[in-house]
């Protein structure tokens, strides 16, 4: 076992990345200014031949960089998790592979951890286009009621986390954005700290419609993850029973006018809607029950708690 160090820097290379060598230089300078011992871990999420070549050249030039190359694409959150597993630092600093904040802000961010468990950077003051700020604003307005914490910049990949906290939070695939939300939900102390936005981050970005759809789905999955993972029936049950009730009322109305006013069922297309809602309601409920059965039958495997220490 190698001795522990202060900070493990994890840079996941996923999809987008800027000039690797230049960015490494900037980050390294920032970390050296903080005066703490550190290591760099680059996690390549799949085949990034160009980035891998540059890293190889940096290592050949005497830079101490660790590189983990995943066999195929697994998603940024998985890349982060693998990086954390192979880190030695007491504190994890995740940095994006592209410019988001000025590297000179790193020492201040690391220092502001103090008694907190996690520090997330907020790019402020914002200098990017109105459109981007608008998009981000809308996303956070939708997100914050769900997350129960006033996040301003969940998309910023710069985060300082204590290692035990990072190990506690299980994320995979595309869930790296949820890290602070889950941390907050689990009762860890999260703090948002303003950091200068990098100049190169200030360009207009327009995403594909698919990206926007995914962000909306993100909010939905956070809602599920945060509130209902252990109790799926509470989630599906409330949905299912409201849909069922709506359909049931429609059918009740039809029965009423059939019996008392002699209006034939066959001539009322709304009967289709009523039945459809009843069917959908039962299905949602059944899904909730199934999910609950899965949790119930596996509950002895899923330890709900993690133990810090046992005395005696």
């Amino acid at each position, binding site marked *: 076992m190698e001795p522990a160090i202060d900070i493990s820097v994890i840079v996941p290379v996923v999809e987008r990345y800027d000039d690797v060598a230049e960015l490494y230089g900037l980050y390294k300078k920032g970390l050296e200014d903080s005066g703490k011992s550190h290591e760099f871990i680059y996690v390549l999420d799949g085949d990034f031949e160009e980035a891998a070549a540059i890293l190889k050249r940096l290592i050949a030039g005497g830079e101490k960089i660790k590189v983990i190359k995943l066999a195929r694409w697994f998603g940024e959150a998985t890349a982060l998790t693998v990086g954390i597993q192979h880190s030695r630092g007491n504190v994890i600093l995740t940095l994006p592979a592209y410019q988001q904040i000025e590297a000179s802000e790193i020492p201040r961010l690391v220092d502001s951890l103090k008694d907190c468990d996690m520090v997330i950077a907020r790019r402020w003051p914002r200098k990017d286009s109105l459109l981007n700020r608008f998009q981000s604003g809308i996303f956070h307005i939708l997100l914050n009621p769900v997350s129960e914490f006033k996040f301003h910049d969940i998309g910023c990949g710069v985060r300082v986390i204590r290692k*035990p906290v990072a190990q*506690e939070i299980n994320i995979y695939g595309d869930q790296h954005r949820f890290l602070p939300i889950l941390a907050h939900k*689990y*009762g*860890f102390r999260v703090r948002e700290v303003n950091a200068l936005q990098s100049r190169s981050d200030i360009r207009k970005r327009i995403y594909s419609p698919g990206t926007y759809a995914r962000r909306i789905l993100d909010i939905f999955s956070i809602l599920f993850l945060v509130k209902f993972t*252990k*109790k799926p*029936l*509470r989630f599906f*049950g*409330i949905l299912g029973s409201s849909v069922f009730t709506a359909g049931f009322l429609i059918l009740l109305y039809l029965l009423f006018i059939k019996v008392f006013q002699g209006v*034939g*069922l*066959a*001539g*009322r*297309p709304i*009967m*289709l809607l009523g*039945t*459809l809602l009843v*069917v959908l309601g*039962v*299905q949602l409920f*059944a*899904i909730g*029950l*199934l999910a*609950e*059965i*899965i*949790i*119930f*039958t*596996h*509950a*002895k*495997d*899923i330890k*709900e*708690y*993690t*133990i*810090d*220490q*046992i*005395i*005696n």
Partner: protein
Amino acid sequence: MKDLSIIAPLYNEEECVRFLYEAIVRVVDPLQLDHEILFVDDGSRDETFRVALELAERDKRLRVIRFRRNFGQTPAMAAGIDHARGKILITMDGDLQNDPEDIPRFIEKIQEGFDIVCGWREKRQDKLITRKIPSIVANWLIGKVTGVPIRDNGCSLKAYRAEVVKAIPLYSEMHRFIPAMASIAGSRIAEIPVRHHARKYGKSKYGLSRIYKVLLDLLMIKTIVSFGSRPMLWFGGISFLAFFGSMITFAYAIVRWNRAEGDSLVVLNGTALLLGALAVFLLFAGSLGELAYKTGNLKMTVLAVIRATFTGFEKPQREE
């Protein structure tokens, strides 16, 4: 294997820990049982852990489990139960609302042959509107639905035979339903009145919002209990209902069609098709349920054997 484990979850109870420890020791020591006390520190932010640690340094029979963060009361109980080494387990609140003086009576009941003994806070010292009335309604409902009529499911002071409670899955807020779940295994359940004190320190950590949660949990327990381990039967039954409805509607549509009212066909046949689809869906849902039971580790046979009686065997099948 020890005789007795006493489990108390603690969350921000720095004032109570020492009193609780002393009260338990005062009661348990004269019993002459090989016992242990388990304090589960549920991620307290105050000095709870430090105080418990001091006590544990002097008394090796006190074990302290510390969580990494706050997980809630049920996981704390579950951790205590998982790590307990006693044959009889007693759980109690960490806030001194339960009285350790009651413990000997629980042990007697277990020794009489009951698997679970529940406390019943006969003279409950809580607010009437926000705590007592919802609790009475909830307990009545739980009793009706699960068929295990217990007057006070919410009381933490309970005693268990270890082999029974260790076989029961415990997660989320399920500790309220341990007796109901244990009844799957045919356990014998007793209830005895206990003393209850008003809170001296700290604040109550619950609210009124629990009713809706209890309702859905209850529905879940009811299904699980009545499933036994055959979800297919349950889903199949509803599936058959839907199929039956579909057939009726379809027949009705044919009757109407014979009277040459063609415009009615779409609505009635559509309805019949929807119900038919539901029937098929539920059948598949049922088989998914079977799959969950098959891959899960809830061993129904274990539960079944715990309370079974064996006659004519050479050796007794279970330890008393």
